[in-house]
Structures are given as structure tokens and as C-alpha cells.
């Protein structure tokens, strides 16, 4: 396919940006200046200042002499780059590959091969971009051509039309000045000295002659403009291998519309994932709104999946978070993380065994998608006697337990998250309680087991050991009580209730 490139030139990038922020400057000519060798030098000018023949590179004092009402503002290094980056991200809605114009730092380069027809032709496409950027407050000049170099040249110096027809760029370049080739100042002055005021006067010269006179860099720029040398754009956003875009004809505002968009994107993406034998682990849906805002929702799965139905359900839970405002014009679905898919062996009978079941995995995905991954827990036995630590959280649904659950000591089915203090009457030194008061109710202990001493794990925390008793009161209720610390006259000890037995 014929490559097409657009060059966007922001004529007064910084000035326009300043005007958006401070509209009161509209009537005042102003310049940006930065200190250079002890002098304030003009770095960029507003439209009004340009009309007074003030150009970048002048000293601020000279500029003020030309135009007494001139406002001089401070320029910051890297501000233009930052602005261009933001504008470039905005322009991703027009083409996937957007690059900052590194040569002059006042424009963008878009590779738009196969994009223009979506807007109904190149003319409408250019019109759309110009009017959109204009409505934002930027005056721009655009050109579309077969090579980035030609597009750059026409956008800055073209006088006829911004639309360079396919294969027409060589002809168009003929009449442009040599500055249009993005050359160094030394080369340009040399060209001027030799009387080359238009590209056509040297374009037909033998390469060896040109190289001897102007060097290799000049030839490269010429070749890039003519298209004999490939020019690679550095895209602002590296294309992700699994990314699908869906532009909508009209802005989408309804939930149904968003659902349809997600399904369409998933269908294409899942097909690609399937052919490559991978599944999605985390996905990101980006919605570009008509007012320039970007809304994103992310999903994650516990296992690689390329099932449209399942992934759609995960997105469906979060559709409410997308605020369409005036409407969404572009959807982008991206698989941020993919994993190779374990293809399960086909089974004749649906065996129910285990948690590693597709439908359970999907259930977990839905639950953790809606309520957060922390809501879902699974416990495996851990090598700790300390009750609070005896059941550890499993990291995944498939993590196997390394040991069996300990069964030799009784454990209560209900464990209080924090042991509660009780009043106890017990014989010394290690008899079980005879009687205890919990929440104002008196319990007469009839049967008891214990004590079971559990020492603190000193390498984890410090404190007293616990002596646990399983007791049953007169009405048959069973409790797990413990005494913290040794029993002794000069020692402080306390009784706690820690759980309820079945």
C-alpha cells in the first residue's frame, strides 16, 4: 500500500498555548525569551509579534525597541516537547503512529496510510484535523504527502495545496526553497551563496557532486524527502502487539453502544489471540471521548483466556465506570499481558473434580473483577501452631497445600478475630476454669480439656505463651479459652475467650 504521511505544523505553538491559558493576551504582542550567554534571547513569538517582524533569535531588548508594547515571558526548557507530547497523544485518534517532529520541535508527524478513508477522503480528513485543533486554539498548517520529508516541506513552505497527490511529491518539491529539506544552517547558507533558491536547481545534480559540496547529511535529507531513503518515525506510543481499534461513525453515548463496541473488539482480538495460542491475562479498554478526555477500564483474569463471552462479562461489570459525556468516538482494546494458553485435553465426561475448573476460574474472575482481588481468599495449612497463623492465604487458586491439615488438636469452628477478655475463676496452677463470665453471662464449666500450651513464635513476635482449654458449660455450649502467661502471684496474667466449638 502507498504510504501517506501528514505533517502538522503548529505555527505559534507556545504562543497559542499561552493564549489558551491567558485569553487577555489576545490583543498584546508577546514573545517568549530565555537567557543565553547573559542576554535574554527570543525563543518563540506570537502572531501579533511576528507581524512586527520580530523573529526568534533576536535579543529581547531589540524586540522591545521594535515594538514598545511587547510583553516578554519566560520560556522554560522542554516546554514545547511536553506540549507536543500531549497534542500527539490527542492525535492518536487520527492515526496509530504519531511522532514528534524532532528537527524543529514545533510539529507532529503522523503516518496515516489507510486512515483517511475513515473520514471520507484525505481532504475531509485534513479539514477535520485542522478544525479540531483550531477549536482547541492552535493555528496549524497541515500537508499530506508520500514521504514525511515532503509533507514537512509542504506544510511549512507549500503555497498551492496541502494535498500532495500520490507520487506527486517530487514535482511539488521542485519549486520549494532549500529550507524545506530540513537542513542545517551552514548548509543552507552555502546553498544560498551558490544561488540555489529552489530545490529544482540542484535536484538533478549528480550525487557525488552534491556529496562533495554539502556532505552526507544533505543527501540523506534530500533522499528522505524524495522517498528514495526510508525515514522511520519514532512513535509516541509503541504499538502493542495485541491492540484493536474501533472508530465509531457517530459518537457513542449509550450502554448498549459501548457493549456492542466491546464485543466487536473482543471478537477480533480473541481471534488473534487464538491463532497465536495465547490468552489474555490483563486487558485495557480505552475510550476516547469527543471532548478530548480519555476513559479507561482494566480487567484481569486468573488464567489465560481468549473466550469472548467470559472477557465480555468482565468488562460488562465495569461499563458503568465509563462516562461517555458527549460521546465516545474511538475505542481501543489492548491486551497488556498475555500468557500462553494451556490447552486442556478434551474430555468425554464432565469431571467435576477440583477448583481448577474453567467455570470456577471464570466465576473468580467475575467476582474479583467486581469486588477486587482481595475479596477472594483461599487457605492452605501452614507450619505454625499459633492459631492465627495456622491457616495461610494461598497465592493462587491452583496452589497445592504442602502439608495436611492438622487434626490432632481440637480447633473451634468459629474463631474470634481478636481474643476477648473474660473473667475467670480457676484453681491454681493449671486447672481449667470452673466458672467464667463472658459478655455479662455466667457460665458454669462442666467439662474441660487441656491445657494445650502454645508458645509464641519468638522469631515472629514477642509476648506471653497461651494455655488453651476447651470447656463445655452446663447448657452444652463449648468454648475455647486461654490464659495468657504463667500463673503466679507476682505475675500478671489474663484469661481470654478465643473461639466457639461446634
Amino acid at each position, binding site marked *: 500500500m502507498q504510504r501517506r504521511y501528514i505533517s502538522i505544523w503548529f505555527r505559534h505553538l507556545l504562543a497559542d498555548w499561552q493564549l489558551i491559558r491567558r485569553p487577555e493576551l489576545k490583543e498584546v504582542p508577546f514573545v517568549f525569551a530565555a537567557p543565553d550567554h547573559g542576554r535574554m534571547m527570543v525563543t518563540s513569538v506570537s502572531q501579533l509579534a511576528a507581524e512586527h517582524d520580530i523573529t526568534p533569535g533576536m535579543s529581547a531588548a531589540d524586540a522591545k525597541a521594535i515594538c514598545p508594547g511587547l510583553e516578554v515571558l519566560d520560556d522554560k526548557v522542554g516546554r514545547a516537547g511536553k506540549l507536543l507530547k500531549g497534542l500527539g497523544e490527542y492525535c492518536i485518534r487520527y492515526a496509530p503512529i504519531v511522532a514528534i517532529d524532532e528537527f524543529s520541535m514545533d510539529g507532529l508527524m503522523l503516518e496515516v496510510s489507510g486512515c483517511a478513508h475513515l473520514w471520507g477522503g484525505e481532504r475531509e480528513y485534513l479539514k477535520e484535523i485542522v478544525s479540531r485543533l483550531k477549536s482547541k486554539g492552535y493555528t496549524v498548517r497541515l500537508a499530506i504527502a508520500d514521504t514525511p520529508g515532503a509533507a514537512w516541506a509542504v506544510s511549512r513552505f507549500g503555497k498551492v495545496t496541502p494535498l500532495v497527490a500520490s507520487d506527486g511529491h517530487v514535482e511539488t518539491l521542485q519549486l520549494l526553497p532549500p529550507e524545506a529539506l530540513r537542513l542545517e544552517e551552514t548548509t543552507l547558507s552555502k546553498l544560498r551563496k551558490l544561488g540555489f533558491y529552489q530545490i529544482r536547481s540542484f535536484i538533478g545534480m549528480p550525487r557525488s557532486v552534491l556529496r562533495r559540496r554539502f556532505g552526507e547529511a544533505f543527501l540523506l535529507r534530500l533522499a528522505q524527502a524524495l522517498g528514495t531513503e526510508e525515514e522511520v518515525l519514532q512513535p509516541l506510543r509503541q504499538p502493542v502487539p495485541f491492540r484493536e481499534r474501533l472508530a465509531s461513525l457517530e459518537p457513542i453515548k449509550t450502554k448498549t453502544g459501548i457493549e456492542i463496541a466491546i464485543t466487536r473488539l473482543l471478537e477480533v482480538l480473541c481471534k488473534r489471540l487464538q491463532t497465536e495460542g495465547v490468552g489474555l491475562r490483563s486487558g485495557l479498554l480505552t475510550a476516547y471521548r469527543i471532548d478530548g478526555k480519555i476513559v479507561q477500564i482494566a480487567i484481569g483474569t486468573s488464567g489465560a483466556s481468549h473466550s469472548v463471552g467470559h472477557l465480555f462479562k468482565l468488562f460488562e461489570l465495569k461499563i458503568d465506570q465509563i462516562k461517555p459525556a458527549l460521546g465516545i468516538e474511538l475505542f481501543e482494546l489492548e491486551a497488556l499481558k498475555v500468557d500462553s494458553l494451556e490447552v486442556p485435553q478434551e474430555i468425554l465426561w464432565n469431571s467435576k473434580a477440583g477448583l481448577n475448573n474453567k467455570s470456577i476460574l471464570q466465576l473468580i474472575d467475575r467476582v474479583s473483577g467486581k469486588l477486587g482481588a482481595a475479596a477472594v481468599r483461599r487457605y492452605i495449612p501452614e507450619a505454625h501452631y499459633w492459631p492465627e497463623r495456622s491457616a495461610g492465604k494461598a497465592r493462587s487458586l491452583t496452589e497445592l497445600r504442602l502439608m495436611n491439615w492438622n487434626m490432632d488438636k481440637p*480447633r473451634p469452628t468459629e474463631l474470634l478475630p481478636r481474643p476477648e477478655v473474660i473473667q475467670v475463676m480457676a484453681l491454681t496452677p493449671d486447672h481449667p476454669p470452673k466458672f467464667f463470665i463472658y459478655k455479662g453471662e455466667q457460665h458454669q464449666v462442666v*467439662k474441660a480439656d487441656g491445657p494445650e500450651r502454645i508458645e509464641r513464635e519468638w522469631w515472629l513476635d514477642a509476648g506471653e505463651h497461651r494455655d488453651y482449654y476447651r470447656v463445655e458449660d452446663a447448657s452444652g455450649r463449648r468454648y475455647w479459652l486461654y490464659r495468657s502467661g504463667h500463673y503466679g502471684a507476682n505475675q500478671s496474667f489474663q484469661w481470654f475467650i478465643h473461639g*466457639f466449638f461446634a
Partner: protein
Amino acid sequence: MEAKLEILNKLRQDLLLWQGFKPAEGEAAQCVGLGEIEAAFPAGVFPRKAIHEFICATPDQTAATDGFIAGLLSVLMADGTGCVWISTARRLFPASLAAFNVEADRIIFVDVRNEREVLWVMEEALRCEGLAAVVAEVDSLSLVESRRLQLAAEEQGIPAMIIRKDPKRLVAGVSTARWKISPLPSSAEPGMPGVGFPRWRVELLKVRSGNPGCWTLEWEADRFLQVPEQKVFVQMVQRKFG
């Protein structure tokens, strides 16, 4: 005489059908180890496509209910399937379930913030195939919500067990069975010290197309054991030295 009995049984079966009770299809009706209690259910089968409500007024009743449910789960999960346990303020101690023959690592605990979320997760889980049971701790459950859960439970045939800790907020639902489990004094072997096997009074307050009743049940190492009423005797204070 025998012919009469046959007719009578046939009539009973038909009556159940007319009442809307469908007998278990396909796989043979399995017992859940409840022994005599199962006779109280329609056609003598523990209803699986159903909501079982457990009423608990006090923490010790909740603990007993946990034990009883764990006993049921040990049978339901015997084929290696998993279970989902949903709650807002969970106090169930996973390490205790081993005593009831349940591998706690096959239970997925879902801890949520409010009851709305409990119901949402429960419905999703009931519609998921490959689970043995879904247990949820819910206090308030309206008729509409319970109806939704009942429909979801019928879809995959997964029993839904609801633990209700607040009997004040009890309203009529469509639950198939309503249980109340309360602890009873245990009895150790005569002459043995200490606390015996967990023993409960199991009250089946309500069961659709069945006969409510009251039983005394004990969990003996790995199965339920029904205790005849007269066997309950009071023991003296005894203790065991650890």
C-alpha cells in the same frame, strides 16, 4: 395388605409430583449421611436444588451450625469438588474444618463488604457449574431475593446454604428447609474425662413437602451419628491433664 401398601406408596409419590416436587433425575439420589433425618425430606432424599436456611441466634449456635454444615460438606465435597463460602464478617476458622473431614483448601472464601454483594456473589456462584455447595452468611433476605436464589440453585443443582445470624430480621422466604442447630452437652465414654464429640439438637423447623422434626445428632470422627434421647446423661465434672 402388601398390595394396599404399594398403592399407598404410589399415591404418596404422585402427591409429591402434584405438589411440584421433582425427583432427582439422572444420577442416583445420594444420601448425605444424615441417617434418619433424610426420611423427613420429600421422597426421603436430601433436596439439593434447594435453599437451606440455618437460623442462629447466638455465637455458639453459629459455631454448631458451622460444624453441621461442615459435616454436610464432607459428603458433598467428597468427589473432590470445591465450595464457595461468602460472608461479610467471617469468623469461620479454616483449620477447624479438618475435624469434619473437609479440606479447607478446597473452599473459596469470598469476603465482601455488604449483603447486596453477598447476594450477587451467591447468585453468580450458584449458576457456576462444578461446585459442591454455596454457603452464605446473610441476615436479611427478602422474598424476591430468595426466589432468585432458588431459581439459580435449580439451574445447576447446587445446594444453597444460608446462615442467618439475626433471627429478628427473619421473613418468609422460599427456602426448602429451615434448620436450627443448637449445641447440646456432649457425652464422653463413661469413665473418660474431658469433652466428648460435638453433639447438637438438630431442628428441622420447616421443610417443603416433608415432615419437620427434631433430632439429637453427634459428629463422631467422620460421620453423623444419631443419638437416642435416653442415651443423653449428665456427667460429673471431669478433666484431663494435657
